[in-house]
């Protein structure tokens, strides 16, 4: 069968387009790059500011330029379609450049392997590992390799000169990512051009350049020199995965395996390595007409490869997706956008028995803002330590990536100093992310530290995405220096804790102190939640009178349940301040009590049955402990 190269290219192009349309759609709808943007410490995310001063900071160090470009592109993840587009384009370029590499190394019949790096990239983003910076470094390395092989037919001296020029440029722009370029050139020279002497020269010069520049001029440690912009650096992931290693080494492995495979094949067939493997023309172009058996492409074969490709990609997409991180990121995002109902909806995806303090923390906040905290909090996993999570003060409870959310909760409830402290910790650990700068701006406005607020605002105004919002705030400050007309600022200012507890934190004391402002409903509900979670039912009952301050109709369900339990356990009457317990709660307790008694000798079975019928009650929570 004769297939023209035109027909072969068409099929290949269709496969390419189809694959990457699906890739784009998957990234857009499943990975949702905006979650990475809003990840606030859970996913590595670089800072970017407009202006020459920020840019100049990237000129004095090799590799910083690529970090600058990556930081810029990463900001566009804010727009999910744009972020998906960027990731897809990067994957496409990886594919195309890998294809070029494969062709150069004599693997014309296995070019479908060129999709592997794209699939690996998908795997990385599936796990919410943001390797954009090292990937861009690799792209440039591959691109420069593409330039290099254009000179394959030139004299040796031209190739050497070009190599040295390209490696210098690459070292400056992408730092040690040039090692990949050097490695590919070495392999090319050894196996394709059969010039081992040149490859030795390349090895020596590339290692020497990096060593001298890093060690003597840049004062970097050896490890830092060789791993600065590589995916297995700890800043990209605390636990570098096999994805990271594979992403980097796939290219030299491909470059090495292809000619070796051809040599092995030739040896097995007892043939000399053909001129075509030596690379006289094979890496350059495909023949216009393919007739020979070795290169016969048949439609079914291509279709089969395409199906395998899609299956593999689908398999990777399905089985490497980090569901838990996705849930956490979505909860974090919806909470930061104050989409409380969405937060609660997300929690339905949480696998049974899976507990994460951040999620619990955000669930409670969402329940409060939807008016359901004292009614439904036990429909969700609970932990007293996750309630307020004043973790900056308690190193045992420190959840670093959650610091911005903790700061947010403290701010809302009136614990302004704790909010400021958490935000500063976040600033130091996560970086100058716009959400953190905005939080610090607002905190300082509420406290009346306008000079400090302006510093954060001025920095925020340089952000690519939040710059306009910052300019609006600047205008607002000109018109109203203390922003008294802003509801959030005004309300928070009225709720600020004014008692200095310098002896460390005590959640109960702090929350009680906040109740000086009878408008602070959040403090009240959190205090009652704290009593429920810490089994201090006596204190809960002593604070029932405060329901009058917040216009509750009746007694919220969980408070009723606690009162009923308390009365049953102690025999004491509780002053309900004119309110009545609902008959339903009493009946429910009676049923619960009799069932619990029934299963008294079979706790495991009892828990299972009680969970089914009473899992959303305080009774069950108490019983399960």
């Amino acid at each position, binding site marked *: 069968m004769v297939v023209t190269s035109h027909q072969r290219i068409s099929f290949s192009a269709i496969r390419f387009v189809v694959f990457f349309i699906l890739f784009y759609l998957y990234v857009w709808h499943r990975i949702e790059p905006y979650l990475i943007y809003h990840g606030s410490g859970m996913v590595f995310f670089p800072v970017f500011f407009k202006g020459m001063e920020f840019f100049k900071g990237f000129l004095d160090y090799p590799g910083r330029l690529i970090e600058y470009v990556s930081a810029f592109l990463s900001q566009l993840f804010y727009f999910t379609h744009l972020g998906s587009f960027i990731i897809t384009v990067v994957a496409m370029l990886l594919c195309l450049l890998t294809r070029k590499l494969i062709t150069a190394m004599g693997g014309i019949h296995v070019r479908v392997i060129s999709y592997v790096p794209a699939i690996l990239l998908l795997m990385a983003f599936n796990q919410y590992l943001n390797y954009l910076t090292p990937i861009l470094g690799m792209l440039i390395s591959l691109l420069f390799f593409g330039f290099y092989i254009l000179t394959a037919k030139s004299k040796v001296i031209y190739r050497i000169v070009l190599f040295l020029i390209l490696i210098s440029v690459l070292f400056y722009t992408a730092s040690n990512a040039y090692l990949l370029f050097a490695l590919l050139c070495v392999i090319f020279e050894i196996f394709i051009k059969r010039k081992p002497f040149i490859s030795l020269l390349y090895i020596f010069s590339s290692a020497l350049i990096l060593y001298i520049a890093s060690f003597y001029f840049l004062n970097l440690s050896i490890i830092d020199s060789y791993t600065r912009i590589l995916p297995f650096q700890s800043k990209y992931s605390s636990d570098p995965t096999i994805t990271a290693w594979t992403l980097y080494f796939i290219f030299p492995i491909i470059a090495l395996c292809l000619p070796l495979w051809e040599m092995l094949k030739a040896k097995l067939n007892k043939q000399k390595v053909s001129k075509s493997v030596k690379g006289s023309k094979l890496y350059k172009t495909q023949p216009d007409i393919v007739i020979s058996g070795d290169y016969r492409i048949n439609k079914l074969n291509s279709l089969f490869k395409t199906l395998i490709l899609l299956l593999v990609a689908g398999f990777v997409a399905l089985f490497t997706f980090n569901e838990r991180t996705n849930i956490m990121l979505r909860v974090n995002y919806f909470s930061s956008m104050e989409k409380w109902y969405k937060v609660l909806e997300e929690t339905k995806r949480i696998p049974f028995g899976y507990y994460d303090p951040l999620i619990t923390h955000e669930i409670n906040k969402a329940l409060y803002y939807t008016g359901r905290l004292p009614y439904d909090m036990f429909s969700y996993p609970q932990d007293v330590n996750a309630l307020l999570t004043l973790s900056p003060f308690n190193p045992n409870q420190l959840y670093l990536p959650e610091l911005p959310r903790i700061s947010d909760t403290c701010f809302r409830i009136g614990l302004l*100093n704790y909010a400021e402290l958490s935000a500063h910790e976040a600033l130091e650990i996560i970086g100058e992310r716009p959400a953190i700068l905005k939080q610090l701006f607002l905190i300082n406005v509420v406290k009346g530290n306008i000079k400090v607020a302006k510093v954060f605002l001025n920095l925020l105004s340089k952000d690519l995405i939040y710059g306009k919002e910052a300019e609006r705030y600047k205008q607002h400050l000109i018109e109203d220096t203390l922003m008294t007309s802003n509801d959030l600022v005004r309300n928070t200012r009225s709720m600020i804790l*004014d008692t200095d507890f310098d002896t460390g934190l005590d959640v109960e004391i702090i929350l009680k102190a906040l109740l000086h402002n009878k408008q602070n409903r959040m403090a009240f509900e959190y205090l009652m939640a704290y009593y429920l979670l810490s089994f201090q039912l006596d204190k809960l009952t002593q604070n029932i009178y405060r329901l009058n301050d917040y216009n509750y109709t009746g007694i919220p369900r969980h408070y009723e349940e606690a009162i009923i339990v308390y009365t049953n356990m102690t025999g004491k009457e509780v002053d309900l301040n004119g309110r009545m317990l609902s008959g339903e709660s009493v009946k429910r307790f009676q049923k619960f009590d009799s069932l619990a008694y029934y299963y008294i000798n079979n706790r495991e079975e009892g828990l299972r049955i009680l969970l089914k019928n009473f899992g959303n009650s305080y009774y069950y929570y108490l019983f399960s402990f």
Partner: protein
Amino acid sequence: MIRLYRILFFMFVLAVFIVGIIYFIKRDVAVVIDKYTSIQRLPNIKPDYKETIIPPNIAPLNFLIEETGIHYYVKIYSVEGKGIELFSKEPKVIIPINPWRKMLGVNRGKEIYFDVYVYRADGGWEKFDTFKNLISNEKIDGYLVYRLIRPLYSYWENISIRQRNLENYDESVVLSNKSIESGCVNCHTFLNNSPNNMLMHVRSVPNPTMLLVRNGTVTSIFSQTPFSSASMAYSSWHPSGRFVAFSVNKVNQFFHSAGAGIRDVVDRDSAIGIYDVESNTIITPASLSNSDFLETYPSWSPDGRYLYYCNAPIIWEDRNLVPPEDYEKVRYDLMRISFEPENGEWGEPENVLLAKDTGLSITQPRISPDGRFLLFCMADYGCFAIYQQSSDLYIMDLKTLQYKKLGINSDESDSWHCWSNNSRWIVFSSKRFANIFARPFFSYINKNGEPSKPILMPQKNPTFYDSYIMTYNVPEFITHPIQVSRREFEMAIHSPIKITGVESVTSATPGTSSIPEPYRQK
């Protein structure tokens, strides 16, 4: 190959063309001002570099004209030499370095004048009153070394010691914590303002060390001993270069749940020791390491015959509580003790200034190199002036022992001061612009101890500090740059030498075990 060269050539030409276009559009064009209206006041500029004394070797004091206009013209001139004229469509005044340097150089002791003109959109040119500065005869030390950090609370990621050339805007990293397992670096001290002999402390790495530079060579000393299992903290070189007085502090940070200042620091215990550089030993005089007192902030007199320090009684019973009871009642006295360098003999502690007389806590004594003045901080309580909004700078005339509050203080913390080598300039950290960010300010101190209006350390971009969220910690003058490279410091850290002996005198404060740091590494 030829195609490749063509592509590269084309890209090069395109890039040059684009740059040229941008330059043409953005260039400032000089105009002639033949008519203007006089505005009878000084112009508003930021930073406020008006009507003060400036060093003859300072980098250009670039500023922002805070007046509304569409064109700006500034003329800078003095008695001698050619003036500098600057036209701009933007209010930023960027003074070229070489003409500035020349002008200041030939006009030492004379005044320098600034004429500011603004072209309004609705009218013509307006000229403000000329403002002037006096160029002092005495230079400021050429370099400033400081620790650059964000406002830190419990955790740190990015800490570096940097040196800044004050004659231009060059700043370089002396040591970054990124290359020492994210440890903490601090307490950089110099012998007689020279980096040929200096100390820097490195904490919270496997080996807390003291980097000692002697005559340009760096060694690392493992600073934990039976006397001081905590790291050495505030240090002061004896002028002979033989001894270093240092404090060890059981320091704790804690936080206020309400009020303007969140952070606070208390020394639950502290003591002073003397490190003998030549014999690599530590001496602990009893009077400087009393278990019932907090001794800290040692500072040698220029003749090396007195050690000044701060001292407060420990008023709490529970020494493990954080914060301790009545921490806000701790007030330090200023003391001194005589020392015979020839035989190592110590005198008895003498009161210099008592907290009960001032009602305030005295910290950070620093004596001018000519021995005439003593600069110190006073705040409402405690030992950590930078965290105290009430902290102000005071000066004592050592001839008369009279002291006064300097007129250059602000409503926010002013502290961490240092004298220049010629005793005429001081640098201090002030939070006057934003109460969590400390910025370095310079002030000229005349022979009578009178300060000039402080000037903010200049930056090339006059609006630099408006969005800069780093804070300048412990600025120290040095006369020339640190010659030891960052790499040499890093290598030294990983091969420390142990201190060979501790000569403890009775009632030395017992060594503490694993003292919690004020900051913790993530």
